[in-house]
């Protein structure tokens, strides 16, 4: 019996060892978690599993120096985001970040992971709706930029800073910080501007050619642009923007009615004038 038990244990430990070098699959606990219980570390395994990187084993990024205990690896030896993300778009983003106020103020200390948590990152296009995308994006900013210990204090601080806006609370709830705090002409939304250069012209968003439609909600634009006849229909998922959202059918209907009415009035007036002349002659 002992021999059988020893074989089973050996097989089981072998499977565990093999699994450490493989990608984590459907619901399996990452091997690191055998020591790093959820209560010990700040990473929530359930949220991590849902994230864009959730299919990777921890050691995919935490590479050198993490396979033995005590770990000798340092942050500098970890993989950098750009080691994997070599797409052209990411190169544009990297350029924008270099030109941003973040890079100028924090220089080399500023990394992608300061804003985009590698453990929980989900692209906006994979989120259930726009409001979730806004919430997640704004949490990154508020982690550093809002003063206060509680969420209520942070909200109050933000509302105070944005008091120049009409209905500041609504703007803060239903808009991404980067909508106004990035260069309107730059598409990646990573060229964060100094506070003094933030967009303050309401018509940047409150207009038919609203910046929000082409930047913030660009990932939804194709599938929802023509919805319900609204101009900038994609924005209606989240909020109604005066100036940006209007219904073409209603507008054309109203213009047609006004046009017909003006024509009718002009014809009536002309008729009165002609008949009055005829009466005078007779």
């Amino acid at each position, binding site marked *: 019996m002992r021999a059988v038990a020893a074989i089973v244990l050996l097989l089981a430990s072998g499977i565990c060892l093999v699994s450490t070098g493989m990608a984590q699959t459907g619901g399996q606990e990452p091997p690191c978690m055998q020591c790093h219980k959820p209560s010990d570390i700040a990473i929530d395994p359930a949220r991590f599993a849902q994230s864009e990187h959730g299919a990777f084993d921890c050691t995919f990024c935490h590479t050198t120096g993490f396979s033995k205990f005590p770990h000798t690896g340092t942050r500098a030896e970890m993989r950098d985001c750009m080691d994997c993300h070599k797409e052209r778009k990411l190169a544009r983003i990297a350029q924008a970040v270099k030109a941003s106020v973040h890079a100028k103020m924090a220089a080399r200390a500023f990394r992608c992971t300061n804003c985009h948590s590698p453990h929980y990152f989900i692209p906006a296009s994979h989120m259930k709706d726009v409001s979730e995308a806004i919430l997640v994006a704004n949490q990154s900013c508020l982690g550093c930029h809002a003063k206060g210990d509680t969420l209520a204090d942070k909200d109050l601080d933000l509302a105070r800073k944005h008091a120049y806006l009409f209905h500041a*609370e609504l703007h803060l709830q239903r808009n991404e910080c980067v909508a106004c705090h990035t260069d309107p002409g730059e598409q990646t939304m990573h060229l964060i501007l100094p506070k003094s250069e933030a967009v303050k012209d309401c018509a940047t968003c409150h207009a*038919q050619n609203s910046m929000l439609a082409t930047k913030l909600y660009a990932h939804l634009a194709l599938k929802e642009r023509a919805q319900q006849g609204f101009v900038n229909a994609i924005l209606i998922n989240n909020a109604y923007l005066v100036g940006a*959202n209007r219904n073409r059918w*209603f507008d054309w209907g*109203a213009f047609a009615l006004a046009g017909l009415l003006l024509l009718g009035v002009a014809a*009536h007036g002309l008729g009165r004038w002609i008949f*009055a002349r005829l*009466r005078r002659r007779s």
Partner: protein
Amino acid sequence: MRRDYGPYPLWLRCWHWSNVLLFVMLLITGFSMHFSRVGPPPVTFRTVVVIHNTAGILLTLFYCFFLFGNLRFGNARYYLITADDITPGMLRQARYYLWGIFLGSPHPYPHNPHDEVRKFNPMQKMSYLTVMFLLFPILIVTGWALLFPYLLPNEIFGLPGIAPWALVHTYTGYFIFLFMIVHTYLGTTGATPGELFRFMWSGVGPEPTSKLRTPDLAESAGSDVQVTAQKDHK
């Protein structure tokens, strides 16, 4: 002093022209916001919003004054609909606008500053009732709702909570704009194109030059209405 006791007393004329001024401002600023475009406008979106909101609040105050004045000074009686207003009143007035006005027929409901019962013709009465007691309240209520958008529900009928209020507000404004076109045009149907405008500005209207007979009596007698308060365009 006569002008203050006529059909268009001073308080009513003040309200009317203030309302015109405010509504035109609201229309212009409303259009400007609705069809806003990126770029340097003559007035910034922010300024336009301030003007629109201020004019809207003033319009509400003036509307309350209009309601008060109607009740206090008895003007409300002119809006009461009688059975005669619907048929044959509306038909008679429509017939006049579609035909009689071209032939120089007498106005079926001529202006008479001494008439204590009737100031408006049936079509006027119906349109003023619709505009002042249906469309204006809708416009004002939705406008105030949009001044406090954070108090509105997050979602209504699958749209963001603000959308239905904004749409109703915008297109009610459109309908009142359409009314203004017709209202202004019909203002030219006095004895001269400017007569009724002067009447509304000064409160001094055309005096009837012969005995006034109501259209009902005229019709029942089988004769034409012999009124000269409404001069034709000879």
